[in-house]
């Protein structure tokens, strides 16, 4: 099968994380041929069985790359929180013109920047894997599943569950740290509570029956002010309590 990896505007981590599969990268290569992936190869492909897109759409160039990737891929995966929710770079709530002026001065918009948005706002995708960065095991499993004709399993539990399974001390209850674990989609194996720190919500909101309003009240009860909590909620995904 043919694989293409496309990078829009981001930190490069979601493309890099794929290489961090190390030896297991060779297992992926048993099923896939990398046809295009500009961080690692000088080759360019035409048609892809699976396309991975990372980053936000932040310029007209990004939008063109995304449309090409969608048109040329049978199965398209939005990879990482930039692609699925916009992540940090979409969280600055100012009109684009003001942001550009603050950064580049009065030159207008010669490079045709767009307000950073997740790719799912422009095209339909077949699978979304969030995470800043996403868990590389999740991507590995998804690619193997697709190659075998199985629809990948999507996690549907909060970070809290993985924290409990690892028997980490609850940083919210025991230390009073602002932890978004109860309302954040799991799949990272509770990376932040593992370090004794609060979950920062990088995988975005847990869909379905979840209670952000309750989380809001808990944090308020711990003494955090409303603006601080709202900024935390809106940092990686535009969360509405």
């Amino acid at each position, binding site marked *: 099968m043919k694989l293409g990896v496309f*990078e*829009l*505007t*981001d*930190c*490069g*981590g*979601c493309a*890099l*994380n794929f*290489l*961090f599969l*190390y*030896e297991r990268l060779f297992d992926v*290569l048993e099923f896939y041929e*990398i046809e295009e992936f*500009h*961080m*690692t*190869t*000088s*080759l360019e492909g035409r048609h892809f069985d699976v396309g991975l897109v990372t980053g*936000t759409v*932040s*310029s007209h*160039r*990004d939008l063109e790359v995304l449309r090409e990737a969608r048109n040329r891929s049978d199965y398209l995966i939005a990879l990482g929180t930039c692609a699925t929710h916009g*992540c*940090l*770079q979409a*969280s*600055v709530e*100012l009109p684009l013109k003001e*942001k*550009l002026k*603050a*950064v*580049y*001065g009065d*030159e207008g918009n*010669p*490079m045709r*920047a*767009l307000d*950073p948005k997740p790719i799912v706002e422009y095209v339909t995708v077949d699978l979304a894997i969030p995470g*800043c*960065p996403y868990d590389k095991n999740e991507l590995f499993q998804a690619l193997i599943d697709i190659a075998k004709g199985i629809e990948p399993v999507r996690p549907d539990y909060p970070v809290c569950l993985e924290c409990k399974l690892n028997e980490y001390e609850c940083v919210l209850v025991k230390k009073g740290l602002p932890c978004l674990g109860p309302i954040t989609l799991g799949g990272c194996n509770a*990376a*932040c509570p*593992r*370090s*004794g*720190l609060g979950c*920062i919500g*990088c995988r975005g909101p847990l869909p379905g029956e979840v209670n952000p309003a309750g989380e809001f009240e808990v944090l308020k009860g711990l003494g955090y002010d409303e603006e*601080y909590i709202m*900024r*935390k909620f809106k*940092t990686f995904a535009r969360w509405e309590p």
Partner: protein
Amino acid sequence: MIIETREFTRVEGNGKAEIVIEGNEVKDVRVKIVEGPRFFELLTLGRDFWDVPDLEARICAICYLSHSVASVLAIERALGVEVPEETRLLRELGLIGELIESHALHLYLLVAPDLFGYPDAIRLATKHGELVKEGIALKAFGNRIRDLIGGREIHGINVKPGGFGRWPGREELEAIEREAKALLTVAKRAVRLFSGIGEYGGRAELFVATDGYLTGDSLVSNVERNFHYFERIEERPLVYSFAKQSLYNGKPFLVGSLARLLLKAESLTPTAKRLFEENRGRLEAGWVSYNNLAQAIELVYALERAGEIAKTLLDKGFEPENVPVEAGDGEGIGYVEAPRGVLVHHYRIAGGKIEYSNIITPTAFNHAMMEGALLWEARNLYGNAPEDELLRRLEETVRAFDPCISCSVHFVRG
């Protein structure tokens, strides 16, 4: 006439170049960073200082820990926090891990295919599997250190003002000491391999680095010592690029491995110092392509230094204790050597909230030099070599800088 390159491959982020030709002569080269703007300084304004290093880490995945550490150092300076020696050593160990991960990625997976004439490391592995596997082993080791100190391979949040969320244990440090020793042979082979690289990209004349090997209180160059970035380095926006350009006393300059070796060779570990001396003449000539050789020598340094740090901490023993940090007012600059060069985080904090933030990344410091190097190559090859060879060489020249394009596109005016 303008010749436009395709978007650079085997580099991090999205960029390309155009070569301006007038009357059969190369007049100018522009490096166009087309990666979209990322607004990181705007994002941090008004934020609680405690949350900021975790957000800044997301500027770059290849060197997230450099951003975390630079951010933490700036915050600690602003709030008057002094951390003990063991905290400093562990942070340095994290930066060493990042250097290993980043240099191994660059040299083995991005540059080595050029040396052997392959489009990528995957195809290279069909003939030179051992070489690619050695690179991957080094990269994985660097990442194990990042995971241990930083909390994750990418974008961990373990490095905090005053100390760490979780401190490493004795067994973990013993494993690092052991593995660093075992991989040293591999790194020494890398130096032999990359000492065969050609001379291209023109010769740099001005070099800038931090005053310590991986962190510092100020900057040094080959013409003066101990200055602050805002005293000498001017940034300007360009209409054709999302990255700004920096000039030192009005001239382009080089940051990164080659600059570090030339300015701070006396700090190297024994084997790295010997390898530097063996190659000194060539490195001092300043060819941009020798940045690759300098990176290979730094791999040796990093492995030796990782072992040294682990041993020091194990011999001395340490208590995992964080220094309390109170929200307050102040201003501070964190200077760090990211794998590809000087990184500056500069904040003003009022009542524990960030009210001014300025970040300059290595690729932004190198941007003007990169254009100079491409201009040199284009003038050298235009009319003397087929166009595809010219374009290939330009791409190799850009690659020698190990640019990190995503990092470079988020400045705010100071």
